């Protein structure tokens, strides 16, 4: 299963699961990155990291290693 880091820009995908240590994944879940939610990478910062993602109609900045913890399905 690909991670959010591996899908291309502008591709809408659904979150399958969030991995990682408990406090880390709880933060992401509480920001609305729940399984089933649609998410899209909209931009990459000029220095290559972090990514800008669209979720629930808002924009968030998320680091690459954090995006690698989010498994998605197309």
């Amino acid at each position, binding site marked *: 299963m690909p991670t959010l880091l591996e899908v291309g820009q502008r591709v809408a995908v659904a979150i399958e699961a969030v991995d990682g240590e408990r406090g880390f994944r709880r*933060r992401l*879940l509480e920001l*609305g990155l729940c399984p089933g939610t649609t998410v899209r990478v909209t931009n990459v910062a000029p220095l290559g990291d972090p990514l800008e993602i669209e979720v629930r*109609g*808002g*924009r*968030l*900045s*998320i680091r690459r290693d954090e995006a690698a913890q989010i498994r998605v399905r197309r």
Partner: protein
Amino acid sequence: MTATRHIALLGNPNTGKTSVWNGLTGGNAKVGNYPGVTVDRRAAPLRGHPDLELVDVPGAYSLVARSADEQIALDVALGLNGQPAPAAVVVCVDATQLARSLYILVQLQELGVRCVVALTMADEAGPAAPDAGALAAELGCPVVPVVGRTGVGLTALRQAVVAAAAITTAEPARWRWTPSPALAAKLATVRAAFPTSWPASDGLALWALQCVGDDELAAVPPAVRDAVVAAAPDAAVDDEAVLGRYRWLDDRIAVLMKTAVDRRRTERIDRVLLHRGLGLVIFAAVMFVLFMTLFAWSDPAITFIEDRFAWLGQQVRDVLPDGLLEDFLVNGVIDGVGAVIVFLPQIVLLFFLLGLLEDFGYLARVAYLMDRIMRTMGLSGRAFVPMLSGFACAVPAVMATRTMERQRDRILTMMVIPLMTCSARLPVYTLVIAALFPSQTFGGLSTKGLLMVAMYAFSVVTALAAAWVLARVVKPLKAKRLPFVIELPPYRAPRLRDVGRMMLAKTWSFLREAGTVILACTIALWALLYFPRDTPAGAPDYAALAAAAPDDEARAAVEHARDAALLEHSYGAQLGKAIEPAIAPLGFDWKIGVGIIGAFAAREVFVSTLGVIHGVGDDEGSLRQRLTDERGPDGAVVYTPLVGLSLMVFFALACQCMSTLGVIKRETGGYRWPLFLLGYMTALAWVASFLVFQVGRLLGF
């Protein structure tokens, strides 16, 4: 007169909470600090209702906390740990971000907290905006749409708050999901261990199950900790709670949004401001303006203030006879107040610009653009602006760390900002370079210019290295494995009134809390260098010599000699002599030691103190000559270029600035961090200067 009751104001960041705060209160805000954390506590009476006090809570997405600063939201909402229990909580809910901004409200309702929703950004949501009545019916609490820009809805919001505060019956806990039997059993175990001061609610038991574990919460009783450990909560608890809440929000609330929110304007602006090339150019230009404002453009105001205080001092000198009172007023009180006021131009300008950039939405983009660089030293992109400001002055830069979300990041940034080459170090470097280094060129560039550039580069490298080391060695500064997700809010026109009020509040809290510390230190330092005001035994009769002087020049020379003798005999100079064995291995004599002590008032004071102790008054040209010509008893040059280099390294690394220490004491709410800063920087400076001087000597310089 009824007793004051409290209303808390909560909400996600970027939901227009500041506008709501300004709309609900009528000035007279009391700004303090929550105990033990680097978070401002603002409280002010509700406009027209002096018996209701509104308490501001820093923006938060959730009540779940791992550190003491995050726990404030819960403490204020429930009235725990010394906070007064609120009669109601106003929750700012962004109409363009309904589900995410209502998440914290769902948590509050599980805890049985009485809520009033201020529905902000309804104008921005436009046709997508949800119907307030339908939203209120789903949430079971009042919903008042407000437009901060125009003030529409604020009166209705105040009325709703007053009505909610008047309800005397207990608010029932509302759960939007049903815990599984396994979770319900865990909740019961934890709840049974609560102290009597905690409400015995399942909501609080769930909070403990989610927060206790790998945390730094100070106020959780051991019995509760043991019960949580016994209940063995795991990720399944989080899934159940968080996903249960969002499922309800998605099913019942998200459908109230009439269409998708139009974000095209923000997207268009982002295409330019976050562009790979143009975006970075604009970023550099904005940072240049910010930096020049602090570094150069605030100079006329600073000079004006310095001139006014110098004028005031002269007036006092003219009126009062020479003596203790005159010197105390001029060099203690007036200089001390001046030393505080002189920071105001930079603080006012920096917070005005920061307020504009934050409200517009650009500060979050700065963090996004710079995160890659700042994370290499264990910080986030939010640390960039405070660090950059440190090149001008550490005092406003330390205050700017309030724009960072996490306490650990704020403190780590504060601990390295004073290493940046601030403008007060420049007069010291200029003097040392001009007096002690020969004019040579090196590859077509002057050595003096290269040295100055090298000192800047040195400060950046040491600041980055110090952050890297501190983040690994000092326990409270260790990085947590938490996501660095930040919101990139829509671009919004800044409101000058909100920016202005924030700027004034910052300035006032600096004057009241840091200013008093700085003034007290200036007076203490004055006393150290003034008393006992004796000339050594066997000194010539300076008064007679001055009277006999043939011209002004000769009289000035006598006065300079007298001032040098008085200073040399002061407690401060005795201290300088006492520490000479400690600073001799760095290449410093006791005169430099006195200069270093005087420089605690402000680094540039090193130059004038050195001038007085060398008997040349405040003429910098004579001081340079004097330093170049100074010979020891054996006829050797005292101040060699190697001593100069060692001295510059010392000034680059030592925390020679009580104003920085004063402002860090104010921002961290205690003496622990400023003392740590003073200790580690002094040790670092001593070791580095020692190495420079001793290695340099071995190499034959």
